[in-house]
C-alpha cells in the first residue's frame, strides 16, 4: 500500500499532466525515493491510484534502468564506464571498488550497504574517472580516494 505521503505527492503531480501516461515515470520516481525500489506491489498500487493497468505501469517501470525493479542497497553507486573515464583508467579504479566491496556490477554488498551499477557518461568527464553515490558526484577517483568515500556512507 502506498503511504499517505506518497499518495499526496503523486496526486499533486498528477494535476499537472494532461496525459496520465506521461506522469508514470514521475509517480514511480516518487515511490522509489521513499522506498528505494519499485516492488511488484508498488507497481499495482501506482496502477490503481492512476487508474491504469499494472501492464501500463510496468512497461515504463521496467524499461528505465534508473527505476529499480529489484531491491538495491542503502546506497547506489553509479560507476561511469564511458569513454573519457576509460581513457583516464577507470578500469583499475573499478577493479579496486569491486574487490573492496566484494560486489560486481549489478550486485549488492552482503551487508546491504551498496549496490554497484555501471553507468553511461555521467557528464562530468573533466573529472574522469567518475562515480556517483546516491545524489553525490565523486571525481578524479583513485583507489585511495575510493576507500575514503566508501567510509562516508553508512
Amino acid at each position, binding site marked *: 500500500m502506498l503511504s499517505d505521503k506518497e499518495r499526496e505527492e503523486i496526486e499533486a503531480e498528477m494535476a499537472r499532466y494532461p496525459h496520465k501516461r506521461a506522469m508514470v515515470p514521475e509517480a514511480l520516481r516518487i515511490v522509489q525515493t521513499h522506498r528505494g525500489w519499485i516492488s511488484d506491489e508498488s*507497481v499495482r498500487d501506482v496502477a490503481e491510484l492512476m487508474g*491504469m*493497468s499494472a501492464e*501500463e505501469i510496468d*512497461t515504463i517501470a*521496467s524499461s528505465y534502468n534508473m527505476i529499480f525493479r529489484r531491491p538495491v542497497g542503502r546506497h547506489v553507486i553509479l560507476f561511469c564506464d564511458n569513454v573519457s573515464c576509460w581513457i583516464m583508467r577507470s578500469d583499475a579504479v573499478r577493479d579496486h571498488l569491486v574487490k573492496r566491496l566484494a560486489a560486481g556490477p549489478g550486485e549488492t554488498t552482503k551487508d546491504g550497504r551498496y549496490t554497484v551499477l555501471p553507468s553511461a557518461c555521467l557528464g562530468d568527464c573533466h573529472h574522469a574517472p567518475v562515480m556517483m553515490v546516491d545524489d553525490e558526484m565523486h571525481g578524479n577517483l583513485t583507489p585511495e580516494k575510493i576507500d575514503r568515500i566508501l567510509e562516508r556512507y553508512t
Partner: protein
Amino acid sequence: MPLEGRVTTIYIDNLPYGVKDGQNLLQASLTLGFNLPYFCWHPALHSVGACRQCAVKVFKDESDTRGRLAMGCMTPATEGTRLSIEDPEAKAFRAGVIEWLMLNHPHDCPICDEGGECHLQDMTVMSGHNYRRSRFRKRTHLNQNLGPFLNHEMNRCIQCYRCVRFYRDYSGGRDFNVFASHDSVYFGRYEDGALESPFSGNLVEVCPTGVFTDKPFKEHPTRKWDLQTAPSVCTGCSLGCNIIVAERYGEVRRVLNRYNADVNRYFLCDRGRYGFDFVNSQRRLRLPLVDGRELVPEGSATQALSATEGGSPRPAPASSEAKGAVVRRAVARARDILHGSRRAIGIGSPRASVESNYALRSLVGPDNFCDGMTSGEHRLVGMMKDIVASGPVRSLSLAEVERADVVLVLGEDVVNTAPLLDLALRQAVRTRPEAVAEQLLRIPLWDDRAKREATQGKQGPLFVATPYPVSIDDIAVKSYRLSPDDIARLAQAVAYAIDPEGIAPLVGAADPLHVVAETIGGSLGLAARPLVIAGASLGSEAILRAAANVATALAKAGKKDAGLFLVAPEANSMGSALLGGMSLDEALEAVRTGGADTVVVVENDLTSRLKEASFRALFDSTKHSIVLDFFRNRTTELAEIVLPVATFAESSGTFVNNEGRAQRFFEVVNPDEIVSASWKWLGLLSGRGTGEEIAWDTLDDIIARISEDLPALAAIGSAAPGARDVPQVHRVPRDSHRVSGRTANVASLTVHEPPPPRDLDTPLSYSMEGSPRGRIPSSLIARIWAPRWNSVQALTRFQEEVGGPLKGGDPGALLFGPASDRTRAYFDGVPEAFAPDPRRPLAVAIRHVFGSEPLSALSRSVSERIPSRYVGITPDAARSLAVADGERVEVTVRDLRMELPVRIMAGLAEGLCALPEGLPDMPYVGLPAPAGILKRTAP
C-alpha cells in the same frame, strides 16, 4: 496487372509499374507480386518502420547510380519513384537484419508449432541469411501461462512489436504490454493469467514467429501441409466471419481467419476461433436412435477411430452396406411416422443452414413450418429483415462500419453479441481524427506512428446507450445507462432532433432525454457517414423501430452514406427470417389445438427457447417426434427417433449474416455415411411414395429448388460456385500439394488405402489435386499459401491489392437490393418512460462472449472462460437488500425461482437487474421480465 484507378508510375529495378496513389513502397511492391521481406508492417496495423527488414534502395532519378537505403514501408510511392529491391547493398542489408534477429532466436523450428507456416522462416530464406557467425549465447526468457487459447514461447521473439500494437493499439486490450529494454524486451502480461481480450487469438496470426501459437491445436500438433482445409463461415454469431477450418484424423483441429474485405478482413474473435471444438464433443451423436436405442451397423463395435485422446467415439468402419442399412432403417421408421401422421409440424433453427431449414419446410409444408424462434425473437428478427429490406438506409458491412465517422449504439453490448463489431468500432472512432491528420498534416494513412502521434488518442464521436456498462464505453464520448424503453425513447428523440418536421417529440416535450438527443442528433447531423447500431439482445422492438427512425431521419436529411447495423441473435437468423414460418409459440398452439400429432425438430435444443412446462407439453401432446441434432441434449432425450446430423464442419450449406449476405460453408471432415447434413436426411424423408426416390440429392439440387421457390433467397446460388459449375479437374483440393502420409493415415485400421471420399455437393475435392492456386474463385479459397510464402502472410498473393478485395471480388451474395429502391415511413409506437420499481426490478438479458452462444460453449478451451450464472444488481439495490458481492439471493422471474450469487454492477441503470440468459447453467427465462429479489434467509 490492370491499371485502372492507378495513377502513379514507379520504377522497380528499372521497369515501370502502375500503382495506386497513396501507398508506400512495401505495399506497392507486394501488390505487384514482388518478394520484399518485412516484419513490423502489417496490412491492418500499417507501418512503424521498426524492424528495418523492408529496406530497398531508392534513387533520386535516372542518373542517380548510388541511391540510398530506405525503408519500403515508410517511403511513399510517388510519381516517378525509382527503387531497387535487387540492389546488392539492399539485399546485404536485409540479410544483415535477419542475422541480428537470429542472434537470439532459437533454432527450434522442428519442434516449433509455427514451423512450416512461419513468416520468420520465410523471410530468413527470402533474405538469404543461412549461416550463424555469432559465438555468443542466446538470451532466454520465462514464458507465461496465458490461459486456454495461447501458448507463449518468448525465446522466439524478434521484437517486431506487432503483438502489442494489435493487442493494445488496435483492439484496446490493456492487460498485455512490452516490458524491459534491449535484449530483455519481453511481450506478455504483468503476471500469468488468461488474456482478457476476446481478440487475443489473433496473436497467432499477427505474430510472425512462434511466440504466440494456438494452444488447443498443440494437443495434436500438425504441420500446415498435413491439414485438410476448406473455406467456411463462423457459426458463433450473426456476423458470419469467414474462416478456414482444418481437419486431421476426422477431427477439427483449428480455425484460422479467412480474409473477406467486406466482412471480417484480417481478424476473428476468440469465440469464433476456438468455439469449433463442439464438433469434437463427446456428446456428439454418431448413430440414429430409435426409441432411445442406437441403430448399430452390423459388424461394428463402437470404438475410437482416432487413437488420440479426446476424440469422440464413433463407429469403427463397418461396411458401407451395413451403414446404408442403418440409414435405411432409420429413414423407413421416420417415413412411416410421417405418412401416418395427421399433421406434422417442423421446427427449424436460426442456427441451421438455409438449406436445412428449407428442407424441413418442404418436408412438412410451408403452413406447418416453424422457424424455431421464440415469438419475441421471431418478431424482432422479422422486423430487422423488414427494416433492412424496405428502409431507405443500407445495412452496412462490417468493413464499412470501420469507416463510419459518427456512431450511435442502441442497446447492444457489442463485444458479447457480435464480438468483431467491437473491433470494428475501435477503428471507426479513429476515422475522423485520422482524416484530419491526413488533411492538415499530410500524414498518409499507412503511417501508423505519425498518425497516433498526431491524434494523441483522440477519438471521433461514438454514443452508447445501454442498460449496463459495456466494453466500448472506453471509446465513447458519452455513455448513457438506460432501461430498454428509455433507450428507444432516446433514439426517438434523436430522430426528432434530426427531423423535427417529420417526427413528434416525446410525450412531455420537456423530457430530459431531448437535451441529450440534441447533442447526439447534432453530431450525427454533421457526419459524412453516420451509423446507427441496434439489435435483438434486449428483446425490444421499440429500440429497433426507433433505431430505424433515426436512420430514416438521416436519410431524409440527405445523408446518403448513412448506415444501419442490426445485430441478429444467431448465425442464420436473417436466413430464417427470409424463409418465413411461424414462431415457436405458434407451433405450440398448432400442437395444442391445431391437430398436429407429430413434430420434427432440426438442430434446435428447445430447452434453450422454451420454459420447462411448455417444453414438456410439446412432447407430451404430440404422438411422434423426430429430432435431428449434433448432440445428445434434453430434446433428443425425449424424441422417438433421433437422426445424427453433421455440423458446419461436416456438411455444406449457406448462412445469411446480419447484413443480408449469403455465404457458403463447405465440409472439411471426410463425410460419414451415417452422420450427414440435416438437409440430406430431410431429403431422404421427403421422398414421395415408398421407393428410394428422394426430393433432392446434392447441394446444387436443393439450392436450385430454393432459388426457384423463394425469390427472396434466389441469390443464394451466387454465394459460391456449385459443384456443377466447376469441372472435376478444377475442383479445389482440400489437401495441400505437400500432404504427407495420406496412404498411412488409417493404417491402424486397415492396410488398404481407402479411396478418397467422393464429394458430389461442392466444387472442392478430398484430394491434393485440382485447380491451380491462381484460378481459385475467392469463395473457395481453402488455404492461404503461395510459393515462398508459407505463413498466413501469403494473403497478399490472393488480393487485388494489399488490404483490398480478393482477386475476382470478395465472396458472398447480398440478398437485399440497393437502398435507392426503398422507401419507408417512420415507425410509430414510442414506449412510455420507464418507471423504476425498486421492489420489482426489470430483469434484462446480459450476454457473455464466452458462454452465451451454446455451440461454442461446448468447446473445451472456451468452457474454461465461461462465467457461472449470477444476477447483476445496482449498488442501491445491494444496499437496500443488504447483500455483498457474491452473496446469494433468491430471484423469481415469471414463475421461475433461482438462487444466484449477486454481482453488484456499478452503472446498471436504475430499476433494472441483469441475468445472463444463455449461459450453460442458466435456464430459459424469457427476458425482459420483472423480477423479485430476496435476500436468502440463513438456512
